[in-house]
């Protein structure tokens, strides 16, 4: 992936204080803060070329330049009703996907104004999360009513499943190898499926693998590690738990007295570290194996609810 001369490691956090902070991940120093006026930030993601960061807020998605000191957004995507709750990119930067409380998932053409890629996917409840399958061809949309919609982009075929009625799906994750899918809900339950994308004309086949109670309170996010061996779940109980995907045994519990809701997390490229974002205004870097806090990113004045992180693996 082109790097464009910027820092190979990028960490940004944002939340309710209308600011996006950029950190030196290894030292914990905030090196830049940009304002995100009029709205909190619900989700962040970095473009594959590491040039821009997208912040999803109320009725808009704004793109900021990562490698300059420009305090204002470069591009403002609007025309969305209500909150945008999820944002992400195709790995070649062809298009951007978003999900929102307007009951839709959208695909935005990024390359030009040709609108070739513009797609919209309507569901019946506010969308909480949208995840792109690593094969870049399927979107998994989790909604407030408890459905996970599997949308095969090429064929436009979609299926949906409801692992637990009346429990909102808060997050869906697919491991980088495309063999496992996890979904979590607001009852503290985590569901796991095995996947295989042998089908050519529709979304991957899903086989239920396991259901387990990962937390006693809401789970806000689940995420597979880049090496697919770990699954992190973050919860309203103030912890982030890391499970071994092999047997779903608890690997580490990341816990701190000051920590409150843990909203978001991201693994380092080698799956040795994890960064979490919490309502106590801090983000933290933890060692996955020991569960100790390595760095604290403090500076936000309100809850930190999302983060975006890019790391690179050197051989």
């Amino acid at each position, binding site marked *: 992936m082109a790097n464009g001369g910027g820092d190979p490691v990028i960490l940004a956090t944002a939340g309710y204080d209308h600011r996006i902070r950029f950190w030196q991940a290894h*030292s914990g120093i905030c*090196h830049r803060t940009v304002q995100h006026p009029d709205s909190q930030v619900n989700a962040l993601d970095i473009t594959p070329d590491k040039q821009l960061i997208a912040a999803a807020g109320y009725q808009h998605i704004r793109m900021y330049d990562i490698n300059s000191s420009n305090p204002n957004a470069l591009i403002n995507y609007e025309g969305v009703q209500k909150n945008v709750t999820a944002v992400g990119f195709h790995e070649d930067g062809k298009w951007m996907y978003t999900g929102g*409380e307007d009951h839709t998932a959208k695909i935005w053409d990024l390359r030009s104004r040709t609108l070739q890629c513009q797609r919209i996917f309507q569901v019946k409840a506010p969308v909480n999360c949208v995840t792109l399958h690593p094969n870049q*061809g399927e979107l998994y949309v989790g909604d407030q009513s408890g459905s996970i919609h599997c949308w095969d982009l090429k064929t436009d075929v979609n299926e949906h499943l409801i692992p637990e009625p009346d429990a909102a799906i808060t997050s869906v994750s697919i491991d980088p190898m495309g063999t496992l899918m996890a979904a979590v809900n607001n009852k503290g339950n985590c569901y796991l499926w095995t*996947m295989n994308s042998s089908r050519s004309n529709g979304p991957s086949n899903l*086989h239920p693998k396991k259901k387990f109670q990962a937390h006693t309170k809401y789970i806000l996010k689940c995420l597979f590690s880049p090496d697919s061996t770990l699954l992190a779940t973050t919860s309203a109980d103030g912890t982030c738990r890391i499970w071994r995907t092999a047997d779903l045994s608890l690997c580490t519990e990341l816990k701190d007295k000051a920590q409150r809701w843990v909203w978001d997390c991201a693994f380092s490229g080698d799956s040795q570290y994890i960064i979490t974002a919490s*309502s106590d205004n801090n983000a933290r870097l933890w060692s996955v194996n020991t569960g100790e806090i390595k760095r604290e990113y403090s500076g936000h004045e309100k809850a930190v609810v999302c983060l975006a992180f890019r*790391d690179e693996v*050197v051989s």
Partner: protein
Amino acid sequence: MAMMDNVDFLISHIRNAFVTSDDTSMSEWVITECRAQDETELKRDSNPRYNRNNMNIRSDSMSDCPSDNEIKGSMDIHPDMDFGAHRRRSNTAQRLERLKKEKRTQSKMKTIQWKDAPETYKAEEKGHLFEKRNLPELPNTGSNIPDQNISTTTFQNVPVPPVLEVTSASSSPSKKAKGVSILSQQLEELDSHGSNPFFKYAKFDGRTAGGLPTRKLEIFLAFAPPEHRGYPMSILVTAHAKAQEVVGLICWQYTEEERKPDLQSVAGHIDPNDFVNKFSLHMAEDDGEIDTDFPPIIPTDPVSKYGFTKFALVANAPVQPKSALVTINVPNRGFNKFQVDSMTVTMRELMDKVIKKRKIKLRPGLNYTLEKTGKSEIGKPVDLDAMLGSMNCLEFYLIRENSSRGDAESNGEEDQKMAESLMSHQYKSFIVSMVHKLRTNTEVQLGISGDKIEIDPVSVKGTARLFRQKAVTYDADCVAACDITETKSNGRAVFRMTYLNGTDYKQHYFEAEQSTATEIVEKVNNILELKFSPVRKEFVFSQEKKALQKRDSIKRESSVKLGH
């Protein structure tokens, strides 16, 4: 929708927003409904982003709203709210201006509106845009998962799959093979060559604060080589930072800029969590000279409190004696004096010192606290976790909870009285009104000294000569008594002076402000007590006799009554 995780705050916010602009009072309806709905949904789980059922379960609502009181309190009406006499411009004008401003900042921002695709999606035409990528086949992945062959899509009958031995067994060697990430490398590097120990103060750096109010300060470094001393280091600090945090930020930036001499050599070993006693911040002149007329800035004060922006950072400050002599009074039991080495010692440590020294037994339920000296501080215990430096006081009282300074303080009052009585021989004059039985009061000057009491008329024009009071002087030895006879509701008091004229006791009545009257009576009585002249003795004796007789007569009367 704002995703606040505090229901109370939200409802209060909505209500306030409505109340200020809604004169139909329909808003109350909305809120009542909303509240009711809110409670019914308490039982139902929902997404935390929607936060309807947070109130009972979680404790996450503290930080996003300042305090409970603020929520429950009535709404604030600010002068800039758009109604009534405060309204200066129309809503439209304001909105237009805001739009204009936004437009200015957005002029460089490209805005892209969502547009639906011009034609409906056809896989044949556009399918190539959404091609799937082949994922690399990895040997140790889910392909090893035993095939479940379950037709149902529910989790009801899923057998717990056996442990994936392949994945778990190969996990550790595979990690090594995969190499490390850049973040891990950077972390390791930083750990090996030591990070900036003042790291936690970096967040007060205004350069990265992004829109927060900041202050630029010029810091003269007293420990820099002489040729550099005149050149201040400028720092940009967030406006709310305390002096202590500013010191931390200076140290951080100093270390970060790799200035010499390094701080370790200046101040010895530095514990970043407790180095405030190593450095102190002083006011400085424009040329960098340390202003020694003032003590160092109190570490817990916000720097924004000080109007000036030039400070000097002094290491191991010799400018002010760091040690201080602290006096702690223990009511009824004298006082202890302590030499403390640093103004950063907490009040609790001081108190514990006294308690230990005094061997005061601490029983459960018996708590001690400290109060500053001075009458205005009575009943105001100091914050025991505060530092001595922030007290601006070096004398304290050790007070047991629910107790008072007791007679330690009243001793002081007695001392004062004693001093007054010793002063009572000195001449002092008062202007008072002399009360006559048959005519209006006349103003006189009452001069009192240890030997004499003079009554001098104050000449008032137009007063008939006839009525003028003659100037008289009484020898202090013939004054028998002086007491207040009446206090009036207008704040004045009448007092009486009894003197011996030949063989008879005579009285003069005077009227004065109550405080003056009290002072005169006390002064005269002090003199009488000290002199204890025969006249006084005689008078006191006769008074006592009278009282005794009275009592006897009462006794007799009552016994007579009882006899019946």
